[in-house]
């Protein structure tokens, strides 16, 4: 090496420049060789398209996943609303059942209004039956005032023996 190329104050290891070419070629060879690893033919030519397809596929999956998430949210909200409704209904029913225990404290007028409004006895026949039933009860209570003699006479005059047997 010519003196003018040497830099004052700087030194290199012994035989550095003699082996430099060999070492550079080794490094180039090492990088070209990739440590013995190889790839299928045209692999890198097709890679761009494969990657883009995978990205498109991922986008599609993300969209589907977002739709599924929305549905899941709707389903959860619907379920929650149903649960709240159920709790409210059960709570109301529980309150209604408990109100029976306080029935004694209700005034007659309140009950009558309730029966009229809610109409437990919706048919006129039901109401008539109640009155009929009361008449019978009244008759029975009145019967306590009739003597045995009067009762026997009534039976002999009004009801035949065959009628009693038939009944």
């Amino acid at each position: 090496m010519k003196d003018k190329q040497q830099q004052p104050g700087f030194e290199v290891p012994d035989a550095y420049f003699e082996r430099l070419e060999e070492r550079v070629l080794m490094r180039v060879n090492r990088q070209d060789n990739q440590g013995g690893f190889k790839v299928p033919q045209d692999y890198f030519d097709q890679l761009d398209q494969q990657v883009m397809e995978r990205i498109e596929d991922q986008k599609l999956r993300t969209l589907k996943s977002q739709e599924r998430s929305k549905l899941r949210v709707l389903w959860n909200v619907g379920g929650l609303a149903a649960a709240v409704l159920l709790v409210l209904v059960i709570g109301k029913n529980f309150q209604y059942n408990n109100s029976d225990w306080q029935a004694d404290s209700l005034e007659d007028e309140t009950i009558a209004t309730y029966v009229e409004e809610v109409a437990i006895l919706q048919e006129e026949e039901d109401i008539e039956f109640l009155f009929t039933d009361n008449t019978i009860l009244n008759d029975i209570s009145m019967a306590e005032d009739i003597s045995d003699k009067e009762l026997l006479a009534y039976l002999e005059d009004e009801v035949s023996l065959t009628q009693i047997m038939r009944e």
Partner: protein
Amino acid sequence: MYIHGHNSFMDKQADSELVNLILDPATRDQGFRLLLTNYKEQLYWQIRKIVLQHDDADDVLQNVFVKIYKGIKNFKGDSKLSTWMYRIAYNESMTHLTKKARHLQISSQELQDHMVNQLEADVYFTSDQVNLELQKALSQLPDRQREVFNMRYFDDLMFKEVADVLGLTEGAVKSTYHIAAKKVEKFIRQDETFTN
């Protein structure tokens, strides 16, 4: 093709232009295709040195590019784009190996032995015995030492870049490389393939 390994203003500017191209919805796909063209081989070989099998490398590489596509908006430009992508590739490769070891129910070291043994029958690995023995030597190294050695020896990254990828100090990388190189040298000296 981008030449990696040496930081420069040109690299940073080119990175910045490329990233802006991808971030613009109108030129996103065009920009990403450019990134693919520029970096696919570099990233492939970095991944391949870690996972060893071509099919695994192909799968990991495609996942890496999907992550880059999705995450490029998070690239702040603090490091080189190649370093940022290398970090993603490294993490993805290591995650792949962890999953593979778990799937095969073997330890990390057993997986390395298993993968190196498979190389002998791999059609995408040269039949050169020297390269095979070198891979056997590397498989005996701890993960960190093997990675530092691969990045420095095969990929020709600077110590600073290796440190950025692995989140280490430059000093730690230098000493790790020194230890790894000594171990590989010792393995090679003991191996008949190299001594004959």
